[in-house]
């Protein structure tokens, strides 16, 4: 049959098969197989011995492929602990600690990296039922220039109370004003109790609502609109600042290379 003319499987060069192949009945082999794949019915194929032979070849292959898949270990059987360990060994040599933030009083020389502080805040927020923390950025709230504070060491933010911006996903059953207050409370509490960082302001951004409960939804959206407006001004301000920081961050990174 036509299929055996294309060279033996042990042939030298791989891919050693024609792009197109016409069966003796005039049908393109590629087309016959694709029709079989899509399940498109074709009266010709049902009766044609050449097409039947071509399909038998494909089914044989599919049978062995199915067998090969069945022989594979189940997903949960893959041992990924060692792999994850090796990945994390490399990752921990290439951490991105973020900015360096002040701890304690202005005259103390104690600091914490942003990534560590953010993780603490996220954990505190996650402890609220139906609330999950996403992005968490921390910076120094604007310090009064006249206060005579000495310039911070290079690459560190000025010593002064922090401003935290946190995005949260919130279950629909929460009142958004209430949840924003709760989130603020948790962060202020964690900042004092777990870190020892002075926090001047916490911007809470509800980034996402969890669940799709239509009845609750309308109610919540009203709340959300209010919240959005409140956050609006803050946010513009915020974005300006973030742009500036993005530039600074670029410079720092450039210096590392």
């Amino acid at each position, binding site marked *: 049959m036509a299929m*055996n003319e*294309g060279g*033996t*499987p*042990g*042939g*030298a*060069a*791989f*891919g*050693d*098969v024609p*792009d197109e*192949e016409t069966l003796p009945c005039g049908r393109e*082999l590629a087309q016959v*197989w*694709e029709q079989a794949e899509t399940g498109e019915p074709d009266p010709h194929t049902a009766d044609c011995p050449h097409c039947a032979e071509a399909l038998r*070849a*494909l089914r*044989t*292959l*599919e049978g*062995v*492929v199915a*067998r*090969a*898949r069945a*022989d*594979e*270990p189940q997903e949960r059987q*893959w041992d*990924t602990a060692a*792999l*994850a360990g090796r*990945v994390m060994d*490399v*990752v*921990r040599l290439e*951490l991105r600690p*973020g900015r360096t933030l002040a701890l304690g009083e202005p005259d103390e020389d104690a600091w914490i990296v*942003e*990534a560590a502080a953010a*993780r603490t805040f*996220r954990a505190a927020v*996650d*402890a*609220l*039922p*139906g609330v*999950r*923390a*996403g*992005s968490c950025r921390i910076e120094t709230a604007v310090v009064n220039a006249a206060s005579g504070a000495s310039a911070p060491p290079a690459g560190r933010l000025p010593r002064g109370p922090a401003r935290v911006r946190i*995005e949260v996903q919130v279950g629909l*059953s*929460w*009142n958004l004003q*209430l*949840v924003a207050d*709760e989130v603020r409370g948790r962060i202020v509490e964690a900042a004092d109790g777990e870190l020892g960082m002075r926090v001047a302001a916490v911007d809470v951004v509800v980034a996402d609502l969890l669940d799709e409960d239509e009845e609750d939804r309308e109610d919540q959206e009203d709340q959300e609109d209010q919240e959005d407006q409140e956050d609006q001004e803050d946010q513009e301000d915020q974005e300006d600042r973030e742009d500036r920081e993005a530039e600074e961050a670029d410079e720092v990174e450039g210096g590392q290379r």
Partner: protein
Amino acid sequence: MPGDRGRAPEETDAPLPHEDALLVVRAAEGDDEAFEALVHRHAPVLLRLATRLLGSPTEAEDAVQEAFVSAWRKLPEFRGDARFGTWMHRIVTNRCLNVLRSRPPVTALDSVPEPQAPEHQVSPARAAEAHAAVRDLSRAIEGLSPEQRVCWVLRELDGVPYESIAETVGISQEAVRGRVFRARRYLTEAMAGWR
């Protein structure tokens, strides 16, 4: 407590599992623990993919490891327009394609693929026969070109739609169809003895 005042959630379920998107945001901001959770979550599927693509569990582990490390480096620029799993699938596939391309060309008869892990429990004779067929298939796959192999494995073993393969590999859908066809053509030939 939130339950004490106003409308607060009544559910007191355990902490919700963190979705990928949330973990990705955290990891992008430097949270290595969030990244570790993503690694644990996605490693099994990616290891299976890489093993299918490369035929060697050892090489597959290396490819997946490198893919994760490169993902960590690229995360700050990852905008979340694709899902993390899709993104990783793409990184691993391209990594494997490069590995396949760097291999010296082998003829199907020379190649001896590494045996796959656990044995199956069926009647010995049938198991042996089926096993031999699978072994022949693995050997035949080594005779495909890297591009054919990747397209065929994604289509037949991973069940990826043609358009997604085209996107992943960066070629047209027509080119993917052509490669899958040529791979099938070659493999049906190789497996003719089992018909």
